[in-house]
């Protein structure tokens, strides 16, 4: 049996079952959502070994042979992204069991959550340009609704802003796809790549590149297009903030950017320069904006912009080492940013506030949240044994080796800024003396603890992914899938036979 379509079928099916049965049966949505994400995690780990053993897998939807029908392609990069997305989503659903108790319609939350997950898995696995747009819209629409989940004033405002900007981005992407279709007369990504190699880029491809750069740039919140993120991500419930910041901007933005630019259009030096510039700007400006924030989730959101800057910078350098760094940092950021957002959710759950100035000394009452948040903060700011250090080290190394010494130095400088504002977070929230009004604060329930501890353990262990033996399975395959560039078409067609 082919496991490739299951990555879309399982979340969509779970969403359907939850919306059908969840309203009447209490507790069932929790079980369904958690077992669904657990199954997806197991499947995606299986997918890595499948690709390792048997090469690229292509599933033909409806039995049509690919250039004509829709295909789903599972290669090194997509299996890596599937593991990142589904593992993080599984840990976040564990957290949601207790956290979402305070909202009334838990089953609606889980339905939208699974729809968003289905959309993201679809974007990752599809081999068809228009299908990518459809899945992107499924994930995006579910996320708009989830941002407005609390229906308070701020949440509605943030959601509206996010929707208008996000829809504009989708329409830019659709226009780009329409122009590409008129040029190549095909929608299959591999076939499109083949036609573009045969015909040369012409004058259209640079124009389409700009459209895609704007569209996916907005989705990824790269710096000139970042304004929606700082409102939308803090307004959502904590598990959704973790999902949006940890996964959604990477899948809809960075992954789609990587796949289309590297594997389909073929990357041009001018585009690489744009990526380098935008990456550096968002890295620096995101970091500087984060320092001044007193709302804990808003600080984390600006920090996301800064870390996305690192990934885009590494993509712009585009040597194999830099691509490895980009992919590794993407995985690390998914883990520690989810952990930090869950920590902020735990603080909000126990104390009811997100304002850093009102907190203080919470370590005495919530030791576990404090410790895991310390691990997350140290990992994101690049303290040696933790995962974040290694990925930043690779990016800085790659920058210096390819002649961008100044950019490498800026990356180190931003890392110090990052350490600065995360120390501020620790200082205000967890260290110091306990304020009187927090004397009665209790540690969060068991499932929330479990999820945070597991994420913190993964944070500590990610450095091991670089060890020879493990690296070949996980990171190297994804990096190879990117480095082959436009040979993607040849590899995909090879595996159809």
């Amino acid at each position: 049996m082919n496991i490739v379509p299951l990555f879309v079928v399982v979340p969509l099916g779970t969403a359907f079952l939850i919306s059908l049965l969840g309203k009447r049966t209490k507790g069932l949505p929790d079980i369904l959502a958690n077992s669904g994400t657990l199954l997806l995690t197991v499947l995606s780990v299986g997918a890595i070994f499948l690709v390792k053993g048997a090469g690229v897998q292509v599933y033909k939807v409806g039995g049509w042979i690919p250039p004509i029908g829709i295909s789903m392609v599972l290669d090194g990069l997509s299996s890596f992204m599937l593991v990142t997305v589904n593992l993080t989503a599984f840990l976040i659903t564990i957290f949601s069991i207790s956290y979402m108790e305070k909202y009334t319609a838990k089953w609606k939350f889980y339905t939208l959550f699974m729809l968003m997950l289905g959309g993201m898995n679809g974007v990752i696995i599809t081999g068809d340009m228009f299908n990518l747009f459809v899945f992107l819209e499924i994930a995006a629409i579910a996320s708009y609704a989830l941002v407005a989940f609390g229906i308070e004033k701020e949440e509605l405002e943030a959601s509206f802003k996010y929707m208008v900007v996000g829809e504009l981005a989708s329409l830019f992407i659709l226009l780009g796809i329409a122009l590409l279709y008129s040029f190549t007369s095909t929608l299959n990504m591999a076939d499109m790549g083949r036609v573009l190699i045969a015909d040369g880029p012409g004058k259209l491809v640079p124009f389409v590149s700009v459209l895609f750069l704007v569209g996916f740039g907005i989705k990824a919140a790269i710096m000139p297009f970042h304004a929606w993120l700082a409102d939308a991500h803090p307004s959502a419930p904590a598990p959704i903030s973790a999902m949006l910041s940890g996964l959604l901007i990477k899948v809809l933005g960075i992954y789609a950017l990587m796949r289309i630019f590297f594997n389909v259009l073929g990357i041009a030096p001018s585009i690489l320069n744009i990526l380098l510039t935008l990456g550096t700007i968002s890295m620096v400006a995101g970091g500087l904006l984060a320092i001044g924030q007193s709302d804990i989730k808003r600080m984390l959101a600006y920090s996301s912009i800064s870390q996305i800057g690192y990934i885009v910078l590494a993509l712009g350098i585009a040597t194999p080492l830099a691509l490895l760094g980009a992919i590794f940092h993407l995985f690390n950021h998914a883990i520690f940013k989810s952990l930090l957002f869950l920590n902020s959710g735990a603080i909000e759950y126990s104390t009811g506030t997100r304002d850093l100035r009102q907190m203080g000394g919470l370590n005495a009452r919530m030791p576990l949240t404090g410790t895991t948040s310390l691990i997350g903060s140290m990992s994101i700011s690049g303290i040696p044994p933790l995962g974040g250090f290694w990925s930043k080290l690779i990016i800085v190394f790659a920058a210096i080796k390819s002649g961008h010494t100044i950019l490498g130095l800026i990356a180190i400088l931003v890392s110090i800024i990052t350490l600065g504002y995360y120390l501020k977070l620790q200082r205000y929230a967890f260290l110091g003396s306990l304020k009187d009004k927090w004397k009665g604060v209790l540690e969060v329930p068991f499932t929330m603890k479990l999820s945070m501890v597991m994420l913190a353990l993964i944070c500590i262990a990610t450095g091991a992914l670089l060890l020879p033996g493990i690296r070949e399975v996980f990171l190297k395959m994804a990096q190879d899938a990117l480095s082959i560039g436009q040979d993607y078409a040849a590899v995909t067609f090879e595996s159809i036979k």
Partner: protein
Amino acid sequence: MVYFLCFIIFSIGLYCILVKRNLIKIIIGLIIIEYSVNLVFILFGYRFAGRAPILAAGQTIKNMVDPLPQALVLTAIVIGLATTALLIAIAMRIYDRYKTFDITEIRRLKG
């Protein structure tokens, strides 16, 4: 020429989103942009004096319209319907809370 007109429609929609202060007018601007993109997509598949690509017995079709963009635009329209419905629902909720559609007065978030 026709594509240029589509571009003008696109610009009108973009102007509407960027300049107008009323939530409903922003939504209308978004719908205008969506229509212009759909129109461009349909026009890419159009052939002059072309006919529908239906093959009946005893007929040979020399010049036919490309049917694929039509199918895709149909999907895009359905997606557009969903987003428009969600946008309007949220705009109504905002009106409930703020009693206004003016975006200069809906400013709880900043920084």
